[in-house]
């Protein structure tokens, strides 16, 4: 046998092995992606708990890959992630608290759009789709408030880096730039800032009409996924477990809505540490709308409130006026009567006796 033919034999054998390998891997891969997650994903105990939580969630009828893709669909990222899990598994590192990094979270988020097109589009329209460039390259903001670690609590919460690795310089004088150009268009408040998917819930189903407890007015509209992502602890906290705001307005305690959803909003749209009304980003309704939840007016994803007035106000209000035409920021952005705080005395004289009577009525709501 001369060298040349030996060479040929070896390469033939090698290609056969390779072919078998590929066929074998291919069929395994197909099996893997179609079998039940209890047989596949959960064979890694790191994942077991997530399979459990998924099996009891409102998405229980979906497969893991509907959201997470397959090991190969995200290409390199996903291979690396699963590969590292095996490495850690063998090294006996406790990987139970594995969390996806921000890029993986955003990959998963792109899959939400397929089914929740409506919510996704509205989110895109609203302020919460702001990107890193909106957060960190805003000259007015940066010159008045120096960029610091705390910014990431409310936007960029899934980023595992510290703020000095994201943007420079950390000074009141620019120009500022993001260290990684890819961040320019990266979303800073993704769906998972407010929604936790692996969370107990039920898929939609038809009500049981034979059961009186299922009468329309007794049915609870459940959104079990509604949470707030707590960056420091790296967990989502259910809205009912979030603290309710106690707010004072010149020592008077403001009546704050009991709506648990509002507890999500005020984590970011928050007053100062002393909880004084109107400080920092506080928009808690006072004045004529005191006690209302943000959700009474704002749509959760587009944040739009412009169509809300007619839910409560007849075309002519108590003041015999079309409220949308009254001088609040709703009508005129520059009005000093902010829709959140507008009160009777913004329009009426404070010692008007007729007004006093009316205010008595209103504050009793």
């Amino acid at each position, binding site marked *: 046998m001369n060298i040349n033919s030996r060479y040929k034999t070896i390469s033939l054998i090698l290609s056969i092995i390779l072919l078998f390998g590929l066929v074998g891997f291919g069929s395994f891969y197909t099996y893997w992606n179609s079998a039940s997650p209890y047989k596949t994903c959960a064979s890694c105990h790191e994942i077991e708990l997530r399979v459990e939580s998924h099996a009891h969630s409102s998405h229980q009828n979906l497969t893991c890959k509907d959201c997470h893709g397959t090991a190969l669909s995200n290409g390199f990222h996903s291979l*690396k992630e699963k590969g590292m899990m095996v490495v850690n598994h063998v090294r006996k590192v406790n990987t139970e608290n594995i969390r996806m990094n921000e890029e993986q979270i955003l990959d998963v988020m792109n899959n939400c759009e397929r089914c929740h097109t409506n919510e996704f589009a509205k989110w895109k329209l609203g302020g919460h789709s702001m990107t890193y460039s909106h957060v960190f390259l805003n000259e007015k903001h940066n010159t008045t*408030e120096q960029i610091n670690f705390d910014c990431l609590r409310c936007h960029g919460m899934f980023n595992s880096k510290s703020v000095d690795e994201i943007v420079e310089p950390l000074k009141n004088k620019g120009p500022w730039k993001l260290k990684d150009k890819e961040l320019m268009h990266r979303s800073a408040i993704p769906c998972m800032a407010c929604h936790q998917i692996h969370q107990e819930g039920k898929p939609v189903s038809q009500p049981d009409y034979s059961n009186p407890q299922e009468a329309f007015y007794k049915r609870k509209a459940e959104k079990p996924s509604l949470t*707030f992502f707590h960056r420091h602890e790296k967990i989502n906290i259910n809205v009912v*477990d979030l603290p309710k705001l106690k707010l004072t307005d010149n020592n008077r305690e403001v009546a704050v809505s009991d709506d648990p959803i509002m507890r999500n909003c*005020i984590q970011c749209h928050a007053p100062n540490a002393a*909880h004084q009304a109107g400080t920092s980003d506080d928009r808690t309704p006072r004045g004529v709308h005191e006690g209302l939840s943000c959700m009474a007016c704002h749509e959760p994803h587009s944040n739009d409130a412009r169509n809300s007035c007619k839910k409560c106000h007849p075309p002519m209000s108590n003041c015999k006026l079309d409220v949308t035409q009254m001088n609040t920021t709703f009508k005129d952005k520059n009005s000093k009567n902010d829709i959140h705080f507008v009160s009777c005395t913004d329009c009426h004289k404070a010692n008007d006796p007729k007004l006093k009577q009316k205010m008595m009525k209103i504050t009793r709501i």
Partner: protein
Amino acid sequence: MDVKNKISRRKFLSLSLVGIGGISLLSLGALNKKPISKWRFFTENEVLILDALVEQIIPTDESMGARDAGATNFIDKQLMGPYQQFQKDYRDGLKLLQQSSMEKFNSKFEELNWENQTILLKLIDKDELKHSHWEKGADKKFFSMVIRHTMQSFYGSPKHGGNKNNVSYKMLKLDTPIIIGQNRYK
């Protein structure tokens, strides 16, 4: 693609191998399936005993007790993590607690009524079961370890497996996460 994001061929190869190796390894796991358990270390029987025990330490009142707040889950989780050295103490301790309960009351600990559970634990706390199976002092040592871990579970961060729904923070009227807006210099 800028230079920084480019991966070297070697890195790509090694990572692909890790990935493919990983997937093949996973397939081995898929063959010998055991039923999925919520628990990482404890058996279902041990969970029943420990649930009853932690509930004696922090009973349910207006707010959740240690059982519902996930103390057992916390201990289970930590035993597979930083508390690995206590695994044997729990395995032996729970077994001995059950034996003591059978001897004294002819009933499983978790099935005893509240008062009898308390009586038994008081004996343990006073180190008075030494004569039986417990080694000298081990009963008290076991009990104080469980107390310690139950407190940690109840007052620590929920991410470690206990303090479900922030129950202890709510009890203490601590706002978590604290509500505080950004500085707005006007």
